[in-house]
């Protein structure tokens, strides 16, 4: 393990070449100590280089993390996002001096509108969950603007991402959970039972978190709309639908996307992401302000939006991330996006087909961009859990799939290969999965004590909670 940067510190050592500090008065008492590292530039460089070597990214290898769409992040996107004319721009730059960037943002919005079927998109939300919150505030504003104050509930299927109910609470709604049928679809009878004039909307991921396309989406949309509610599309799984079925055509009134999933921007070790929100024409007045408008040949930030829910970010969102998605959209074109979804679905079905003779797949039908495995029988028989298999995959050089999600599948592993992986890569991964399956039966201890090849062993997560050590100086 690499030590902490604080442990390299030597009093009096420094890296910077700044001039001596001038004598100034801040008008408040100055601090006596500040325990930051005193190190040379080579210490900083070697320390963070070593840390990077203890990480695993998409560039390191296959990363089938279900629901996270860990596709390859093209290098040209990085080059474009690093252009100094864009990175160096202050957000108060007058519109006429920012026109190149405003045009890019406007064009990005247009490409998203065409791909998903919406009238407008806001690019302001900084992540998917931020987009959910924004979309729910728009639903709230729509009902209130019509004088309908009774609609306090949002319906959410039991298989939904955890951010859905959390965003509902943040947006001032009550969450009502809707049951899934044995085939993974929404239980229409349960839905009907809950639909009344207190329902503001239904949040849905399609394909759902089991990787299945909601066959009844059109009747579901009709039911919700007839009851006066709106439909919200959680775009976490949009990578299966590009150019094949647009959320607006499915009946969704509001939709958020994750540019860091579907549009190939890097995940950054957990951000920055970007979560644009698209809406139908009827909901456009409520979008956060400003929007970028184009009039008389000029692009400008339009703050004059009286029905807007207000700002959700200090400025206009994660511009650096949006620039990367812009490059991806331009290079793919509509046809490339469609091909991406087709091959993402092909890859998922191929891995599923190769594994299903050995692994229990609770939803065996054709899947979309991802599918789930359940090892609950092996847990009973051999004492091997989903987490054990995940850890053992590290020994074979892979990032594990998502585990224990969705919550409705016990001992669950959720696999999403994405379209950027080749057949060779998928075959090698399937071979490893099949070897692990054999190990479960012949040598379960080997799997239960994995990983064996990583720089550290399994962690004591209970101790981390019971005896929190969150700050080097505490």
């Amino acid at each position: 393990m690499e030590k902490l940067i604080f442990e390299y510190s030597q009093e009096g050592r420094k890296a910077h070449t700044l001039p001596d500090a001038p004598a100034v008065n801040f008008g408040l008492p100055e601090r006596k100590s500040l325990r930051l590292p005193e190190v040379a530039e080579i210490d900083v460089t070697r320390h963070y280089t070593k840390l990077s070597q203890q990480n695993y990214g998409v560039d390191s290898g296959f990363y089938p993390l279900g629901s996270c769409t860990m596709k390859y992040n093209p290098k040209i996107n990085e080059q474009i996002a690093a252009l100094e004319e864009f990175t160096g721009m202050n957000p108060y730059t007058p519109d006429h001096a920012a026109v190149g960037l405003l045009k890019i943002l406007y064009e990005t919005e247009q490409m998203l509108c065409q791909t998903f079927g919406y009238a407008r998109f806001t690019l302001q939300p900084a992540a998917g969950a931020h987009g959910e919150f924004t979309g729910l505030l728009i639903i709230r504003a729509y009902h209130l603007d019509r004088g309908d104050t009774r609609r306090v509930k949002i319906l959410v299927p039991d298989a939904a991402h955890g951010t859905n109910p959390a965003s509902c609470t943040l947006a001032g709604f009550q969450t009502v959970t809707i049951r899934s049928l044995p085939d993974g679809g929404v239980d229409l009878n349960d839905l009907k039972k809950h639909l009344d004039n207190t329902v503001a909307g239904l949040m849905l991921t399609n394909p759902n978190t089991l990787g299945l396309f909601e066959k009844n989406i059109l009747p579901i949309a009709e039911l919700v709309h007839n009851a006066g509610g709106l439909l919200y599309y959680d775009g976490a799984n949009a990578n299966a639908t590009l150019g094949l079925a647009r959320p607006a055509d499915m009946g969704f009134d509001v939709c958020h996307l994750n540019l860091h999933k579907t549009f190939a921007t890097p995940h950054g070790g957990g951000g920055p992401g970007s979560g644009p929100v698209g809406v139908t024409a009827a909901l456009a007045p409520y979008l956060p302000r400003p929007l970028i408008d184009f009039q008389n040949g000029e692009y400008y930030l339009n703050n004059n939006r009286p029905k807007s829910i207000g700002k959700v970010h200090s400025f206009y969102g994660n511009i650096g991330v949006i620039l990367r998605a812009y490059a991806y959209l331009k290079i793919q074109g509509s046809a490339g996006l469609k091909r991406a979804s087709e091959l993402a679905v092909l890859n998922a079905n191929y891995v599923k087909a190769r594994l299903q003779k050995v692994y229990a797949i609770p939803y065996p039908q054709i899947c979309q961009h991802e599918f789930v495995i359940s090892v609950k029988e092996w847990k009973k028989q051999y004492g091997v859990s989903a987490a054990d298999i995940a850890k053992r995959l590290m020994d074979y050089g892979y990032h594990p799939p998502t585990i224990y999600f969705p919550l409705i599948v016990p001992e669950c592993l959720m696999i999403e290969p994405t379209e950027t992986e080749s057949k060779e890569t998928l075959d090698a991964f399937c071979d490893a999965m099949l070897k692990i399956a054999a190990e479960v039966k012949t040598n379960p201890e080997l799997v239960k004590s994995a990983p064996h090849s990583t720089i550290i062993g399994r962690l004591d997560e209970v101790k981390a909670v019971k005896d929190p050590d969150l700050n080097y100086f505490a």
Partner: protein
Amino acid sequence: MAYFPHTENEIQAMLQTIGAKNIGELFADVPEKLKNLEFPEFKPVSEIELLAELDELRRRSERQSVSFLGGGRYDHYIPPVVPALAGRSEFYTAYTPYQPEISQGTLTAIYEFQSMICELTGLDIANASLYDGATALAEAVSMAAAATGRTEYVLANTLHPNYCEVLKTYLTPRNITRQKESGANTAAVIFALPDFHGLISNWQEYLSKARENGALFIVCADPLLLSVLEPPAADIVTGEAQSLGLPQNYGGPALGYLAAKKDFLRQMPGRIVGRTTDGRGNRPFVLTMQTREQHIRREKATSNICSNQALCALMATIYMSYLGRSGLQTVAKLCKANTDYAKQKLGGIPDFSVDEGEHFRDFVLHCPDAKKIKIGRPLDDRRLLLSVTEKTTLKQIDFLAETLRRTGKNI
């Protein structure tokens, strides 16, 4: 169309394994009605064509290097080690470190970030980052409301107007409202350091007021300024850390940070990294205290946050490591010296004036016609918000002063 490694032969072999005749069969569950719609399309371009197009567009985005623009994002010097190291793809192509055995790089850096933020703020605990300063402050007020069971907040001084708007957007749906005076239902008193106009003022009076009413005291602070000042005696310190090694990026990605007294750990939003043990005698790092979070607590979570700004936190950590105490404090003092110099020079021009008090980076220039001056940000007809950093030279300030003096009332 790019980034697909599949050959036609491979696609056929894969379809055979699946037992499907063609790719279309994989979409049998999609209703026919949806499949047969006509979509508007946009054409793909090559990398060369895209770069040529961008070359044109970037020329039309004038980067105004001597713009005197600030107001929340600042043009600080970024040492080359920051992009060089944060640009290593093992960092930026990874996701949230759910699997600690192969994520010690990100986890160690976040623990260092949390520790540095605690040191700057004088508080016990910090999270792994939030989207930006405005949303971090909104999360801080949510924390205060949850911790006190109260539903009002009060602004002690002039908060950035965009932050005020984000607070309103975030908190109104849960009936958490802004009031002019603090009282028995006040969850938090918010103090900006410096305020929107760059003014550094004493928080003592507002702290006492918060304590009197049993409200939490939240300071929304610039971390560079915290590097030189005695830490405020706050319950929560939060704010924007773009000034720690991040470019302005037209406002984002930025870096929200949030630190608190340890009593508020259970109300803390976002990811938190802790140190623990493994079976092999190591002391590795792991995401912890996850029972606060959305993927476990769902509608009862402290926040809906999932992705944060991990890569930006890494950049700030590298920046603070490189500069250390002396570097960070020198940057802060150079900013202050340049602000003092600019105030003195510009405030001395006939018909122009500046406000009294100590200002940090931003300050207001009162002038005859703010909207005609093509520099800084006009706040109204007679006030201009100007900003300097350690990169601003005395020559640039002199030149601005000379131009304003020459054109004077006529501009």
